[in-house]
Structures are given as structure tokens and as C-alpha cells.
């Protein structure tokens, strides 16, 4: 995660509104599908989980790995973009 992806920049640049989970950096189609199966159908719902974990990136990464089977890079990227979004918009 030396440089942030375009997806990351796009997500952090504006309020998330009703964006789908795929808008989250690090979340591709496969992960999005798994998340949706468990009720996390919007990026904001994932944000809710992130906030429930007190914005703890480590815990959130663990959670994403467990729930969606993400790898460390994907989970870390997602956590980072949510963290920065929170810093910007909360």
C-alpha cells in the first residue's frame, strides 16, 4: 500500500452516499458478493461495521478476512480507505 489506488482516491474524495460495496478500495467482485450475502450490501453498511469496531484498522482487517475471505492487502486497503473517509467526513 505504498501508493493509494485510483479507487481509493475516488472513494475518499466524496461522501459515500449509496455507493455499493464494490466502490470500496480493495473490494472486488468476489469479495463484494460474499459481503452482500452476509447483508453488507452497501459501502455504508461496511462503514457501520468499521465504526462498531471503533475505527480500529487491525480489528477491521481481521473481520474482513474472516467474513469475506479477503487477503491482507485487500483488507488493509479497504480499512485504509474507510479510515481516511472517516477522517475527512465524520
Amino acid at each position, binding site marked *: 500500500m505504498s501508493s493509494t489506488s485510483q479507487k481509493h482516491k475516488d472513494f475518499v474524495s466524496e461522501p459515500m452516499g449509496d455507493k455499493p460495496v464494490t466502490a470500496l478500495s480493495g473490494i472486488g467482485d468476489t469479495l463484494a458478493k460474499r459481503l452482500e450475502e452476509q447483508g453488507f450490501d452497501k459501502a455504508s453498511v461496511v462503514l457501520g461495521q468499521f465504526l462498531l469496531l*471503533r475505527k480500529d484498522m487491525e480489528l477491521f482487517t481481521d473481520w474482513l478476512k*474472516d467474513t469475506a475471505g479477503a487477503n491482507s492487502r485487500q483488507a488493509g486497503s479497504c480499512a485504509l480507505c474507510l479510515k481516511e473517509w472517516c477522517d475527512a467526513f465524520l
Partner: protein
Amino acid sequence: MPFVEDPAQLSKSRLKSDLVAHHVALPPAASKKELYVELHLKHIDQSNCADFSSDDEDPVHDVVGEDPENATVLDPSALTDKDLKDLLLKHGVKAGPIVASTRAVYEKKLRKLLQSGGKEELNEAENAVLYSDSDEEEEGDENKEEQEEPEGEQEQTAEALKLNQQRCNKPPQEPENDILKEIFPDTNATPTGIYATPRRPIKGAAQRPIQYAYPKTPVSPTTLERREVERRLVPIYIQILVFFTVVYVLYVISVIVEDGSSVMPLLESLNQWSDSEEGSPALDETQDTHSASGEL
């Protein structure tokens, strides 16, 4: 401590509430009374009797005394949300709300913490606490065992009961300190008599009088405040010294003011002296400038 009843004579509901008060996980609702008695003996009387010495042949005690290490490797999934949160806090993790979606994460976290930090962090104090705090987690396994063969354990229960009674009735008049040493045989004696142990798991409930053997009554916040203030105050003899100095100075001033005649000339002479000293160098300077201008 002297107030110990025979658990076998208590009602089932009373046993239940005692167990709850001591943070012991209850066995399934349909369990027999013997099971409750056993649990009561194991968890409550043990903490009351406060005898963890290893020379104990009692089989029930051995279960607990044998492997305190295992008690730390507990199963977080058996904890209530609140206990989970408390345990995490004890390991230095401030947990957020524990709800359905976050619980798994926190359980995993706790498991990780217990595995990594558990063995190193154990000190004497925590060891002592093991007997009370983490017993509830052992419960899950023991329940199953006990349910399988409650009949066989019945005799042991009776035995354990007798032993417990003997032990409890033995030292009724001993001083408090000795009892404390019995409870925590490995604890170093501290000068204050206060031991750094985490929270006490036993609460009073079900109209049961609690009889802790506190070495000292805890100090109230006001007393602590007063002590804090006293620590910062100047010592009393310095205060007295300063008082007398001030009185003396005031006395001298009053004497001087009363016969003002003697003071006024003194002041005037002082003024004159300072005037003359200031005046002469000024004259010299003017002379210098005059001479300098003359030379030019």
C-alpha cells in the same frame, strides 16, 4: 469467613443465586441438585475456606489446583458479552460495542491475546485471581463431565463436603493476616498490606453477609485528598518561624514609627548622601565636555 453453611442443606434456588453471585456459570437448568452442591463447594467454599495448599488430597480441589494454566486458555465463546468486554479491557484492549457482528472479532482478538500474552503476563497476583475469575470458563467442560457421571461423584461430594467443613471450622479465631496469607500463600507481604490484585469477583448477593478479611479499611477519597494537601504544606516549625519573624518586623516598624523624630533625620541624611554622590560625577562630565569642546 466464620459464616459458612453446609451447601447440601441449601435450597436449589439459593445455590443457584450463590453461584451467580460468584460468577460461576450455571449448569443446564435441568441439572440435579448435587451438581449445584458440587459447584458450590468447588467455587464458593473454596474461596471462603481459602485453602489452596498443595498438600490437599481432595480430588475436587485437585481439579482446580492442578492446571491453573489451562484456565487461562479459556473459551471466549462461552463468555457473556460483558465478561468478554471486561477481559479484553484487562488485556489492555478497549472494546467497542459487542454485538452480533462484532462479537466474533473480539473473541478472536481475546483468543490471540490469551495465547500470546497469557503465559508471560502471569504474575503472582494474577495467579491468585485465576481461582476465582477464570473458573467460570472451566465450567463448560466440567459440566459435561459431571453430567455424564453425577452418581459417581456423589460420594466424592460428600467427602469434599466434610473436608470443607472441617477446614472452615478449624480456625475461627485466627487473626486476619494469617487468613490472608492462607489465601495468597505466594503473595509478597507489602508494607501497606494492600495487594495489587485485580477486581474481586465475589459480590454479596442473596442476603448473604459478606465477610472479607480486609487488612485495612479502604481510605475514603476525602482522606486521600487531605493527605495530598498535607504533603505539599510547609512543615509546621517553618510556619512558626515565619510567624515570629513577621511579628518581629512589625514590632520594629511600630517602634520606629512611634519616635518618628529619630527616623526623619536619618532618612534626610541618607538622601543627602545619595544626592552628593550623584551630583559630583555629573559635574565632572560637564567639565569634560567643556574641555573637549575647548580643545576642538
